[in-house]
């Protein structure tokens, strides 16, 4: 991108694939596993994508079905006036400078086909009315830009019509799957989740071993043995968190935080090895896949006979839970309106889904003075707060994590106003774009977030980026290593767990990462 005035109409600029600018295509075996159409070996950087015969009709028929089925899609296709308010709000546009990453133009990639085949003006006037026929070039463009959107919905905050660009991207991805065009980094975790209950592919014994290993570390650090249970019928609460929390750093420290917190308050809860994933890569695939993978949560809650479900630190999980689960797989009338057994607070906001976010739950505990906290244990950390796209924009979780942060660290600082809360910048690698082969793109799309972190690092000496999302914990770590290498990433519950004064604990010498604690009197 040179910044010069374009010499060609956007419709005449083809998408060019080269190593590093596309996610690897789904393996044949993965496409077969999901019983998706057209399993084959192919690569986006080859001319021939080996599309099935009559693929144009398959796409157009798929689009028609979705226009009939989703009123929202029809509205989003019709109501955009191309005002451009969204144009410079997208982290992918800011990071790449590619005009097709302006949300308005990304949507136009689909809208142009919609106009051509589904509106009177387009049928008559074609390109004059902004329409264009479905061609291989258009399909390739969809693949490129539907996978340079993280469905973060920052643009939608600024759209005067409230067009949900994430749902447009979701439709483009769904349509692409109809002809066998998808990415492995999404379909493989989705397959793992379907088969083993979680994205990592942790089988029940492995999941238990991993958690037990974290309990060993907790014992070494605090002298306290925590004893979580699995698949326990009759537990009051089912706890579901992203599987990365019990597999990879730095998520494992967040999981240690949960374990300490639950032990601290004597919570009657159980993990499940069946519903062992909070995240849902189905959201990044298709509505049907999302529904199927999500169904495990309520099914397991019912089987175990719990009263309600507590959810861990995951981003897109909460988009699914808060905006789709109730109508997809509900009503969960076999569960009770969540009530904290420690404070008796009734979470009316979760009266329908029966699922409470760990930050809401923790904030309520703090507010009712139920936790013994020593914030000085986090004195070596000077955090700033990253609002994860989905928890902030899709469920309005803005103040609870800040309230928790106020209590568990001596001091922390906000990033600039237009980069936080509803206007938060994406990590740049959500919706299954957190794969290594597009690392340069990820560092570009994460630049606006990294830039805001850099600002508070320079100004206040911030050294920690705290968040409540498993994808964030993995991707922001890579982003910080590149742009702000002195800043470490952690989950909020790690800070909570590290600050808790446990009954019968030994003198604390290190944090949950075995890092020495500075300036701490215990």
């Amino acid at each position: 991108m040179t910044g010069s005035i374009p010499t060609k109409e956007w419709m005449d600029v083809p998408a060019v694939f080269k190593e590093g600018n596309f996610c690897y295509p789904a393996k044949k075996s993965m496409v077969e596993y999901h019983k998706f159409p057209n399993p084959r070996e192919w690569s986006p950087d080859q001319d021939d994508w080996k599309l099935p015969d009559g693929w144009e009709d398959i796409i157009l028929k798929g689009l028609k079905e979705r226009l009939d089925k989703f009123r929202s899609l029809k509205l989003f296709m019709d109501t955009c006036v191309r005002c451009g308010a969204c144009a410079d709000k997208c982290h992918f546009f800011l990071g790449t400078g590619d005009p097709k990453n302006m949300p308005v133009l990304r949507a136009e990639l689909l809208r142009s086909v919609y106009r051509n085949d589904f509106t009177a003006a387009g049928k008559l006037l074609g390109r004059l009315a902004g329409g264009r026929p479905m061609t291989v070039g258009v399909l390739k463009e969809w693949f490129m830009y539907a996978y340079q959107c993280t469905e973060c919905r920052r643009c939608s905050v600024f759209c005067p019509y409230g067009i949900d660009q994430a749902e447009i991207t979701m439709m483009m991805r769904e349509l692409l799957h109809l002809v066998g065009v998808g990415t492995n980094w999404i379909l493989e975790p989705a397959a793992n989740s379907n088969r083993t209950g979680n994205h990592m592919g942790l089988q029940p014994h492995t999941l238990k071993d991993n958690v037990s290993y974290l309990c060993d570390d907790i014992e070494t650090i605090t002298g306290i043995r925590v004893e979580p249970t699995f698949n326990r019928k009759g537990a009051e609460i089912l706890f579901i968190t992203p599987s990365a929390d019990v597999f990879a750093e730095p998520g494992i420290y967040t999981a240690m935080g949960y374990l300490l917190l639950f032990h601290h308050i004597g919570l009657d809860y159980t993990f499940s090895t069946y519903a062992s994933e909070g995240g849902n890569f189905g959201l990044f695939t298709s509505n049907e896949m999302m529904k199927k993978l999500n169904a495990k949560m309520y099914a397991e809650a019912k089987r175990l006979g719990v009263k309600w479900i507590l959810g861990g630190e995951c981003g897109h999980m909460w988009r699914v839970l808060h905006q789709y689960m109730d109508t997809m797989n509900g009503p969960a009338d076999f569960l009770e309106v969540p009530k904290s057994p420690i404070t008796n607070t009734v979470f009316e906001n979760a009266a329908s889904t029966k699922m409470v976010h760990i930050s809401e739950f923790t904030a309520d505990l703090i507010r009712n003075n139920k936790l013994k906290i020593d914030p000085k244990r986090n004195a070596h950390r000077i955090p700033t707060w990253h609002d994860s796209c989905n928890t902030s924009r899709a469920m309005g979780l803005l103040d609870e994590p800040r309230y928790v942060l106020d209590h568990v660290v001596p001091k922390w600082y906000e990033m600039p106003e237009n980069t936080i809360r509803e206007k938060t910048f994406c990590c740049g690698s959500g919706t299954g774009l957190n794969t290594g082969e597009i690392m340069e793109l990820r560092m570009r799309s994460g630049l606006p977030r990294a830039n805001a972190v850099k600002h508070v690092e320079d100004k206040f000496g911030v050294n920690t980026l705290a968040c409540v999302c498993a994808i964030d914990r993995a991707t922001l770590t890579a982003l910080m290593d590149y742009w702000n290498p002195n800043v470490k990433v952690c989950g909020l519950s790690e800070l909570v767990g590290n600050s808790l004064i446990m009954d019968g604990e030994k003198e604390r010498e290190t944090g949950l990462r075995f890092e020495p604690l500075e300036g701490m009197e215990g």
Partner: protein
Amino acid sequence: MATIEHAGSSYDVDEDGFLTKGMEEWNQGWVEYVKGLEGITDLTDEHWKVINALQDYYKKNGIAPMVRILSKTTGYPLKRIYELFPSGPGKGACKMAGLPKPTGCV
């Protein structure tokens, strides 16, 4: 998908250079090939300890171990594993041992 020819054997690999069929196709020749890729001069007992630990774990669990479990099993801190396998436990050691690359929120 591509095919690698090395010392008279051929191996199917994915885009990241991991064995497509995993341990089924894994042999001594593959270890020698990855040794070259990784820029490892001498393959020592320490390397083999890591490879064996990864393979044993994979056979029982169908997945690579958490890095900290690998450290505990072998007795090598992460720093030492990086010294042994410059591109790290995931990309270097797992590739050499014939394990697949982990996916998901990692």
